[in-house]
């Protein structure tokens, strides 16, 4: 396939959902539910098929590297990325470029996004069937998919930023889709604003890069970071960096700032608070946006800026990820809302991915992104299926006050909803990291990566694997808690008892997604992913910053020995083994055994507590009262932020508004008042003193005027006579 064809396809993939959005937003209401469903789903179906083609050709096929650098779109192609660029607009002597690029990462993400979006389109036709804004929902799904694909297909950071903001707004609209509910509208706002904080960091990172490189293209900025010209200019002081920073600090800061975007979007600590609230949105939305795709965009971004991450940036990323993974897992244990548990589990898993990228296990992190997308989407869709069934059952019973999402109202669902139960169970196994699932493969290699990192970095670095393994155990525990409480045992309410399995359009996506969580899609060896295609095709990109700013153990070992000729042939280029990779191999088996053990423990404990009641859950709750409340209240983050950040801002707005209306405006009014007072005083002075004098004169004149008055007859001729006399006088005076 030629590069041009591939890019054309990518462009079509990008634009089809936009088309669906346009049709549905303008004509959806007139078309009705079925056509708008058909349009949206067809667009995504075609998208998915094209994505398959692109994926196959890019990842397994070969792309003719025909480059066309003449036209409006300038096409570049090499082994890693096929891309097109064009100048969006000119400014100064340069221009701002946009573009489209497909590499292996993007090709895999394309598949993930289009397939999940397609399945969610199908699923929603049942779930949203009774909603009066059905076409609007499909329109939003369309624009979201478009925006997400924008991020995926970006070959520069600006495109990513654009997509970033757009998915943010889509998320806002979809979370607040049922805006009649105040909680939904508030959750949407909270999500958007929290994301904006991260976006600001992203923006500042972009500005910092532009400052030095004047560009945002991956293939132009990253290589430039190590260019001799730049380094020489910086060393000689010919170029200076803002605030007198040195280059390493500057790169670290830029990386951290860009990563802030990921912190916001991927709900990392400390900006994770929006994601659980985002569950106010319709469940298909949660599956699509808040589990599989949009929240993973942060990880994707981190993967994209990998070449510019300094050692410090990576440590920062690793610790943030570890912290998030652990914290969210502990919160998930005690949540009662079906979707909230899943939400915190998402946060925790995202933390995993970020952590993986941070410790240097690039491929594992991205691998986990993909596997997690499948099983988390499946979990959410399954929860949607359960909630929908509960809703229907409530609808039949005429019950309206119960919370259909509270797991304490469920129980025993496995008898009524067999397919849902089986798929749910299977993906729960996957997320817990049980062998023969994709989750096992990815999680295992991440944990190996953290161990390797801790071994090489030492010291505090050991916190990372501890958090990772801890989170793994806890994940297994709460996922099985959820399964057992919701599906096993006896129905806790009448409603749960009367639930029914949903129709084909609901369960089909579940089955598809659950199937994708099997191991053999990624590697035929169920315990080692390293031999599968994924690890062969997705390689850690070459880090392009000067070596002194990188982790020493991440540098290629045989860098010195490698012959230049060899360096340029094919894949070998990036395959110079590093100390880190070797250590990771070392730790592969121990990590696997340890993770299996911990996951097994977690599962067993869950069964003990909730299935066989060996321990009484309520008693335990009482025993660990403080810990329980702490976890139940989500570590009091919301309260903390309300009290500090939000409280402070509201306080500031109050101060400023009062300052504005009282002080600034007060000064203006006071000066006006003073002026008018002065006017009045001078008026009085005028009245008494000056007028007095004037009146004196006036009275005198008045007397004289009485005489002259007779001359004033009101006739034109008299006027003229006087004028003439005046004229004559003037003549004699001046001539």
């Amino acid at each position, binding site marked *: 396939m030629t590069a041009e064809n591939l890019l054309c396809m990518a462009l079509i993939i990008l634009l089809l959902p936009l088309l669906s959005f346009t049709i549905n937003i303008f004509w959806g209401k007139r078309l009705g539910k079925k056509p708008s469903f058909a349009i949206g789903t067809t667009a995504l179906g075609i998208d998915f098929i094209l994505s398959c083609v692109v994926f196959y050709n890019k990842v397994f096929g070969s792309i003719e590297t025909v480059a066309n650098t003449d036209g409006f779109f300038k096409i570049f192609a090499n082994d890693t990325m096929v891309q097109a660029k064009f100048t969006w607009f000119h400014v100064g002597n340069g221009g701002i470029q946009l573009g489209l690029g497909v590499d292996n990462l993007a090709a895999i993400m394309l598949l993930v996004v289009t397939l999940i979006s397609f399945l969610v389109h199908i699923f929603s036709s049942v779930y949203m069937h009774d909603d009066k804004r059905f076409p609007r929902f499909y329109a939003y799904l369309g624009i979201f998919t478009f925006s997400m694909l924008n991020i995926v297909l970006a070959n520069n950071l600006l495109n990513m930023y654009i997509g970033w903001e757009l998915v943010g707004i889509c998320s806002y609209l979809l979370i607040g889709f049922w805006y009649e509910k105040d909680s939904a509208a508030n959750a949407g706002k909270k999500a958007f604003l929290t994301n904006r904080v991260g976006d600001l960091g992203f923006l500042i990172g972009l500005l910092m890069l532009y400052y030095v490189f004047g560009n945002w293209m991956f293939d132009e900025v990253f290589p430039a970071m190590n260019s001799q010209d730049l380094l020489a200019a910086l060393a000689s002081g010919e170029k200076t960096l803002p605030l007198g920073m040195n280059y390493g600090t500057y790169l670290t800061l830029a990386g951290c700032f860009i990563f802030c975007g990921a912190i916001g979007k991927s709900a990392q600590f400390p900006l994770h608070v929006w994601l659980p609230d985002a569950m106010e949105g319709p469940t298909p939305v949660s599956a699509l946006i808040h589990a599989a795709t949009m929240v993973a965009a942060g990880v994707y971004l981190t993967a994209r800026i990998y070449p510019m991450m300094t050692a410090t940036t990576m440590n920062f990323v690793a610790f943030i990820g570890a912290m998030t993974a652990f914290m969210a897992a502990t919160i998930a244990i005690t949540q009662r809302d079906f979707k909230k548990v899943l939400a915190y589990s998402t946060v925790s898993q995202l933390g995993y991915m970020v952590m993986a990228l941070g410790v240097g296990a690039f491929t594992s992190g991205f691998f986990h992104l993909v596997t997690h997308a499948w099983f988390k989407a499946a979990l959410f869709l399954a929860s949607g299926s359960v909630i929908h069934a509960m809703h229907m059952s409530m609808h039949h019973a005429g019950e309206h006050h119960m919370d259909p999402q509270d797991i304490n109202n469920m129980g025993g669902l496995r008898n009524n909803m067999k397919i849902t139960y089986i798929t749910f169970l299977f993906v729960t196994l996957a997320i817990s990291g049980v062998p023969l699932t994709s989750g096992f493969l990815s999680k295992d290699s991440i944990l190996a990566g953290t161990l390797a990192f801790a071994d090489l970095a030492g010291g505090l670095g050991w916190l990372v694997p501890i958090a990772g393994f801890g989170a793994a155990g806890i994940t297994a525990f709460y996922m099985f808690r959820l399964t057992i409480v919701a599906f096993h045992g006896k129905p806790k309410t009448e409603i749960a008892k009367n639930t029914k399995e949903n129709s084909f359009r609901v369960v089909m996506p579940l089955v598809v997604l659950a199937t994708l969580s099997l191991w053999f899609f990624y590697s035929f060896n169920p315990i080692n992913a390293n031999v599968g295609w994924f690890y062969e095709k997705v390689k850690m990109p070459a880090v392009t910053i000067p070596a002194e700013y990188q982790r020493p153990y991440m540098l290629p070992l045989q860098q010195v020995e490698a012959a230049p000729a060899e360096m340029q042939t094919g894949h070998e280029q990036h395959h110079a083994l590093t100390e880190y990779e070797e250590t990771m191999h070392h730790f592969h088996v121990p990590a696997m055994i340890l993770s299996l053990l911990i996951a097994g423990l977690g599962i067993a404990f869950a069964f003990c507590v909730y299935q066989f009641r060996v321990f009484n859950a309520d008693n335990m709750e009482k025993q660990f009262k403080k810990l329980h409340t702490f976890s139940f209240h989500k570590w009091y983050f919301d309260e903390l932020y309300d009290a500090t950040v939000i409280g402070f801002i509201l306080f500031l707005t109050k101060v400023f508004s009062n300052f504005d209306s009282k002080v600034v405006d007060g000064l203006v009014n006071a000066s006006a008042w003073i002026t008018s007072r002065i006017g009045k005083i001078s008026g009085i002075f005028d009245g008494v003193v000056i007028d007095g004098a004037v009146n004196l004169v006036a009275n005198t004149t008045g007397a004289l005027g009485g005489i002259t008055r007779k001359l*004033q007859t*009101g*006739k*034109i*001729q008299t006027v*003229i*006579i006087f004028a003439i006399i005046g004229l004559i006088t003037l003549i004699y005076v001046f001539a």
Partner: protein
Amino acid sequence: MAIGLNEFLVVSAILFALGIFAIVTRKNAIMVLMGLELILNSANLNFVAFACFGGMNIEGHIAALFVMILAAAEAAVALAIVLNIYQNYKHVNVDEVDSLKD
């Protein structure tokens, strides 16, 4: 004595004075108007005289022409006003039209 600028100017001065005389002595509005025409003509005469002798050149002619235009406009409006006054007061004696007096 050849005819020079001064002769024309004297004629113009006399015309001007006569115009003034008409304006200040006559009561009939139309007579006042005629006096006004005399004054304008005297001014025109000056313009043309200066054009010929004073180096005002052709611009003097243009000025005279514009004065004529104004005179025409003024005559039309003034006569209309006269007619209007006539309709209101049933006479055209200007010294009885004294609404300007306050």
